[in-house]
């Protein structure tokens, strides 16, 4: 049962990330995703300090705001300061991440969060951390409920606004010309990415989320030219990473999140060699 819940949690994280990651990869913004996932740390730590854990959607949104703020900052330094994008990303996210680490260390006693948790989360605790309804009956593991909600939101967003996302991704000039603001959709997407990184934080940590955003999407991007197929395949790869990752970590007695990422890297490796050899 525990194994099932852990794999389920991992899959929820991986599918959410894969769906959003597909758009990030196509929009050439993978590193912005990386920056967001590091930058949300101070927001998460403050949320932890205030309430003790991240278990309401409002906390997630609050902490996620810092992620969107970081994309604003990157854009601001790039445009107003004429700082090249790579440096703008590098300066912004390390700064916010350092702030987060300082907060964690300083308040180490008060918050249920430590440095290891930042790096790779602790998905193994998910089955014990239950959510209760008003009468005190357990509904289910907290992380599963929150992540299902986030995944539902992402699927809803992509299905309802598929056309807008499609057009702003592939031809932003055209979309601007016909009155669909590409920057508005850019920030909507960034908002969802921050939301997902915050929600996934306890399970996989701030950094390994990046791998789940990029690796399945990049693997799918290699083998298909169709966006719908890419979304489906990357989700599938995400679920596979979660499933095999769990067993790999069981085998090695190591971090589950680390193992999930290792598997997603291996999937990419297979796709890469298939493509390169067929050339």
């Amino acid at each position: 049962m525990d194994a099932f819940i852990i794999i389920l949690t991992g899959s929820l994280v991986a599918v959410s990330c894969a769906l959003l990651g597909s758009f990030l990869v196509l929009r050439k913004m993978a590193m912005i995703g990386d920056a967001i996932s590091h930058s949300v740390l101070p927001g998460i730590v403050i949320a932890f300090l205030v309430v003790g854990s991240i278990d309401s959607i409002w906390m997630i949104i609050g902490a996620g705001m810092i992620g969107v703020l970081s994309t604003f900052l990157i854009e601001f330094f790039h445009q107003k300061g004429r700082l090249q994008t790579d440096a703008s990303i590098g300066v912004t996210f390390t700064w916010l991440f350092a702030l987060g680490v300082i907060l964690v260390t300083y308040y180490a006693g008060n918050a249920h969060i430590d440095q290891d948790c930042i790096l790779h989360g602790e998905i193994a605790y998910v089955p014990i951390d239950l959510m209760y309804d008003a009468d005190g009956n357990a509904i289910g593991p907290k992380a599963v409920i929150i992540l299902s909600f986030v995944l539902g939101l992402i699927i809803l967003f992509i299905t309802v606004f598929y056309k807008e996302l499609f057009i702003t991704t592939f031809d932003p000039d055209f979309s601007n010309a016909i009155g669909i603001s590409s920057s508005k959709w850019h920030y909507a997407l960034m908002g969802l990415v921050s939301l997902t990184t915050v929600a996934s934080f306890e399970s996989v940590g701030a950094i390994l989320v990046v791998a789940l955003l990029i690796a399945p999407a990049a693997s799918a991007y290699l083998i298909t030219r169709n966006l719908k197929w890419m979304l489906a395949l990357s989700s599938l790869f995400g679920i596979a990473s979660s499933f095999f990752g769990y067993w790999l970590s069981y085998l090695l007695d190591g971090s589950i999140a680390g193992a999930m990422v290792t598997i997603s890297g291996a999937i990419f490796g297979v796709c890469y060699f298939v493509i390169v050899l067929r050339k």
Partner: protein
Amino acid sequence: METLIEFFSFEYPNIKYVVFGTILLSISSAVVGCFTFIKKKSLVGDVVSHAVLPGICISFLASGSKDPFLLIIGAFISGWVSILVMDAIIRNTKIKEDAATGLSLSVFFGIGILLMTYIQHSGNAAQSGLDTFLFGKAAALIGIDLLAFSIIAIVVLIVVFLFYKEFKLISFDPQFAKVIGLPIRKLEFILTSITVLAVVTGIQAVGVVLMAAMLITPAAAARFWTNKLHKMLIISSIFGAFSGISGAFISYSTPSMPTGPWMVMVLSIIALFSFFFAPSRGILVNSWNRFKIQRQLLEENLLKTFFRIGENSNDYFQDIEAGDLRLARNFSSAQLSRGLKMLSSNGYITKSGSAWTLSKEGHDKGKRITRLHRLWELYLTKYLRIAPDHVHEDADTIEHVITPELERRLEQLLDYPTSDPHQSAIPSR
């Protein structure tokens, strides 16, 4: 204050070592960071710093010891491999640089985390302390570790010193470097190798994740203060060294404070300060200049419009309504009210009822702009053979920046003309 004196008197040899070590590490990464910055490959440092983790774990697993030289070799190899993987993905597939960077970074790191947790759970007693690589521990820089990392930092600095000219060339203009026969591939190999080395040494102090900042942030901050590479190297080293001392001091005075993140914090504050307040390149100076230019453009465009309306009816000092100005040229209402207020306070126009009248100064200035506009139009048609209906836009931009000297040259070149390509008179001076 007392702690400050205590700290800088270096009473405890330990402090001396830690300060010495962090300064050396900061400087070597700041110097190397300048080159990756100029090559616009700052995030390569981020990739390498994450990617050294599996190398450290594997060399520990293979040797069973924490001998710094063995760990460094492992870290060096896996750092290099991550760069090769990234390049191979970019070269062989349609995946772009950003995704290849993020992919290589996060997957290597994930493997590293898996291996590290595997080592931790394996019950090997020798492993304790291996996780200092994750967040760094400058205070642990003592004995053989300090020696090992200092040697590498010094090697990095010496290599940069020896190959300064070559590195400068391949960073700014690799094409040119190739043409004049420099061994590009070898130089790139050396530059990448010292980047990896700088990262490997730096993570001991600040850790895997924040190492990127030690490379990127000093260079980015220094770039705002100078246009010269050698000055940039010096300034970024100073920033790096300062952050090293501050980080060491903060964690000395408040032992619960981590050195690495504070070093990055100090660096980031320096960088943010530079972004906003640096002279000539800073955001504030820039915005102020842009504001001034926009004001000048608006002022001159308005006066030109006044002048042209006067020209059409041959009465330069008539009353002109704001609506007439908008008919003649597309001003927004906000621009118009702001611009007219500005002009009247400068004495170029005077208000009479709801209308405005040009003053003598305003007339002269409007005339000069119109004159420059038409001179330039004529120059474009005559010397660049551009069709007369295509020259207006260009003249509209350049009329604001032509100096009196240039004006005289144009006149001379065009043989003191009296009318422009559209047969409008060019007003005399």
